[in-house]
Each structure stands twice: as structure tokens, then as C-alpha cells.
């Protein structure tokens, strides 16, 4: 996979994640009203202290109109990111806009964030560094992809190691108990796992093994690397439909082109 192809694929996937993020928050506009969970009245009084510019920006995004405009701006940036990979200058602007609006809106919400949002920022940041390097002459243009790949490996590995240290995960109870919650669970899956305890143990240990071993994707031969990425895609799609974690699919798949790109470069270094 060439540098351009990897950047294109990552940009297309992360643009879907950013678009979905923006559209979902636009649909929650009632929650940004004074009696909503993202109420701006609290935000006004507690978060707009500081410099005049900062206060102006934060007050702007606190108002319903300013908030809607910021969300629409982020949505527009997502569209540009998907189609502007051939023009590094325009792409850089759109990526910077998506990062800035994301940071601003997360700050404005103050709660309700998730890991997918963090991966979106990482992928946008890596792509921005790559496109700025391209604008500046091309040296270190692949640094962004290496950064995304390293963060992706760290994300899975840190999650896997943390689960490995947890008695709840090692016993197999973690998944069964999560399945019993209304927020992330599923009646059907909970009943299935409760009546077959081995299934819970196998699921927990499969997740731990997959997450801990994911960094090997950088050095494995290509067919095995693709196998690991397919397992990752299946894992996220399953989490989306069983647990409702829909944006993890697009956010994490957006990092996979960087894994493919870096795996090929590592393979070349190893003489494969």
C-alpha cells in the first residue's frame, strides 16, 4: 500500500467517524438546552472564565445557534476530508478544523465522551501531520501513519493488559455482567452466557488475547496481519450491534490502513 493510498483510506474512514459523531450530536439538540444533560447554563457560569477571546469562543459554542453551526462545520470538514486527499493544503485545513471543533465540542459537553472520540482525534492528528509534511516538501510525510499505527497498537495492548490484570475478566464474569446492563447489554446474549459459563470465559480470554497480541500486526507476514485486522473488524462490528458502540467501528478501522502501510515497511526492513 502506497503512502497516498494509506492516507486516502484512513481519511475516508475517519471522515465517516467524524460525520457520524456530528450527526448524532445534532440529533441530541434537546440535551443541550437548559434542562438537558449537556446544559449550557452550567457551562456558561463555570467554563467561560479566562481571556476575552477564550470566553467569546466558548460563549459562542454554548449558544444553541453557535453549537449547531460548530457541529455543521465539523460535518462539512468530514466531507472535505473524504474527498480532498489529493490537495494537502485543503486537506490540512479540513483536518485542523475537525480537530479544533472536536476538542471544542467535547469541552462544551463536559461528559459523555468515549474511546472512539480519542481514536478519531489520534487519526486526525496523524493525518494532519502527514498532510502538513507534504505541504512542506514531503520529508517525514509518513510520520503521521507511523504515529497512528503506534497509537492503535498501544490502544489494543493497553486495554488487553488492563483486562489481564482484572480478576473479573480472567474469570469470564466481566462480559456476562456487562451483558446484564441496559446500557451495553443484550438480553439474548446474557441468557446465552449465563446458561453456558464457558462461553463467557472463552469470550473474555479471546478479547484479552486479541488485544494483547494486536501489536504483532506490525511484524507478522501479510496474510496473518490481514487475519488479525479482519478479527479486529469483526470484533468492532460485533461490539456495535451487541453493545451499541457504533462509532468504534469507523474510528478504529480508520487506523488500520496505517497498520497495513507500516507492516509492509517493516517487512521490507526484515527482507520479506
Amino acid at each position: 500500500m502506497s503512502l497516498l493510498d494509506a492516507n486516502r483510506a484512513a481519511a475516508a474512514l475517519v471522515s465517516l467517524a467524524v460525520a457520524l459523531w456530528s450527526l448524532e450530536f445534532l440529533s441530541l439538540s434537546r440535551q443541550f438546552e437548559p434542562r438537558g444533560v449537556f446544559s449550557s447554563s452550567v457551562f456558561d457560569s463555570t467554563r467561560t472564565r479566562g481571556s476575552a477571546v477564550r470566553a467569546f469562543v466558548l460563549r459562542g459554542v454554548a449558544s444553541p445557534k453557535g453549537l449547531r453551526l460548530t457541529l455543521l462545520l465539523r460535518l462539512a470538514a468530514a466531507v472535505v476530508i473524504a474527498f480532498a486527499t489529493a490537495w494537502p493544503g485543503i486537506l490540512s485545513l479540513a483536518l485542523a478544523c475537525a480537530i479544533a471543533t472536536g476538542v471544542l465540542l467535547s469541552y462544551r459537553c463536559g461528559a459523555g465522551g468515549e474511546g472512539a472520540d480519542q481514536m478519531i482525534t489520534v487519526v486526525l492528528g496523524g493525518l494532519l501531520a502527514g498532510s502538513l509534511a507534504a505541504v512542506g516538501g514531503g520529508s517525514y510525510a509518513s510520520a503521521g501513519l507511523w504515529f497512528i499505527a503506534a497509537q492503535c497498537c498501544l490502544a489494543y495492548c493497553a486495554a488487553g493488559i488492563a483486562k489481564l490484570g482484572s480478576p473479573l475478566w480472567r474469570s469470564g464474569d466481566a462480559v456476562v455482567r456487562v451483558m446484564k446492563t441496559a446500557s451495553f447489554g443484550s438480553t439474548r446474549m446474557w441468557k446465552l452466557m449465563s446458561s453456558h459459563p464457558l462461553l463467557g470465559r472463552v469470550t473474555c480470554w479471546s478479547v484479552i488475547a486479541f488485544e494483547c497480541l494486536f501489536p504483532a500486526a506490525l511484524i507478522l507476514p501479510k496474510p496473518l496481519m490481514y487475519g488479525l485486522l479482519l478479527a479486529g473488524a469483526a470484533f468492532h462490528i460485533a461490539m456495535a450491534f451487541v453493545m451499541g458502540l457504533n462509532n468504534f467501528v469507523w474510528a478504529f478501522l480508520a487506523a488500520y490502513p496505517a497498520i497495513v502501510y507500516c507492516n509492509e515497511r517493516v517487512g521490507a526492513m526484515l527482507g520479506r
Partner: protein
Amino acid sequence: MGPLLAGVLAIWFLLTVLFQWKNALQARIAELDRLHLIPQWTFFAPNPGTYDFRLMVRVLDGDGESSPWNEVLPVAHRGPLSGLWNPERRINKAIVDLTQRLVRAHPSLANPDAIVGSDVQAAPNYRRLLACATNGHGDRAVRFQFMVVATTGIEMPEDPRLVFKSALHETAGTDHVTA
């Protein structure tokens, strides 16, 4: 420009590594990272969320009669398309975030008989929950109180455990505390 960008990314990655596990730098990084650019990747671990946090409200009329506790912003039922479109998860997650931060900052709230002091009531996390709790009061309501309970179970919530209970608030102005 290339080396500078590569340096920035290297520092970002290094800080992310240091931020994953409890160490002396973790708290310092969290304090400095006002924009939340440094990710914490330990999803659902070591202790996954095995409870639903439910925001409950009761109202009191002029005679002091209390209504039953009713849930505000209940956990939304997820349909077959939630794998594609599921904005409501943000609302549940926000209630969990606000509650956990509040209880972490004010451990005395874990005591069900705790008096909710003015410092707690001034906290932004408390005020956000209070704002949500002002929904759906009837005409006869004079005061109201909210609480967060942790439950398990999907169709039929069970094993409710009190996380914290608010002070009593006047319905007319949510900033006025009466008890």
C-alpha cells in the same frame, strides 16, 4: 517542518504511553491536558461498567406528600440498528461520568444520610444532574429531590444500590435549597 512534526507526534505518543498506567506522571499529565488530547486506552478495564446508573426524581406537594421516585432520561432501548445509529448512548454515559466525578470529588456522598453541603451543590457535575432533574414536575410540586441508583438487569432493573441522594430543591428556582 517535517522533523518538527515528527517530534510533536513522538512526544504525543510518549505521553500517551505514560498515561496508561498509574504512575507519578499520570496525574500531572491529566492536570495539564485540559483539551483531553492524551487518550486513556484501557476500555472496560480493569473494572467494566456492570451497572446502569439511573437518575430518579421525586416531587413533594405543598402538604409534604411525596410522589414515587420516577426515572428521568431512562436508558434507551436499543433496536437492531443501534450498531449503525445510537446517539442515546451519550446521554447514559454522561450521567455515569457526572455521577462518578461527583462522588469521587465528594466521597461523603456515599453515605446515604450525608447532608449535601453547599460545596457539593455548587459543583458543575451536581448542577448538570440537577438541571436534568427539573424535567417533568407536575403543577402541584413545590419541592423535588433526585438520586442516582445503580441497577443491573435489562427489562426489569434489579438490585438497586443508592449511589447518592441530593438535597431537597425548590421547584421554582433550582438554585434555592430548602434542606
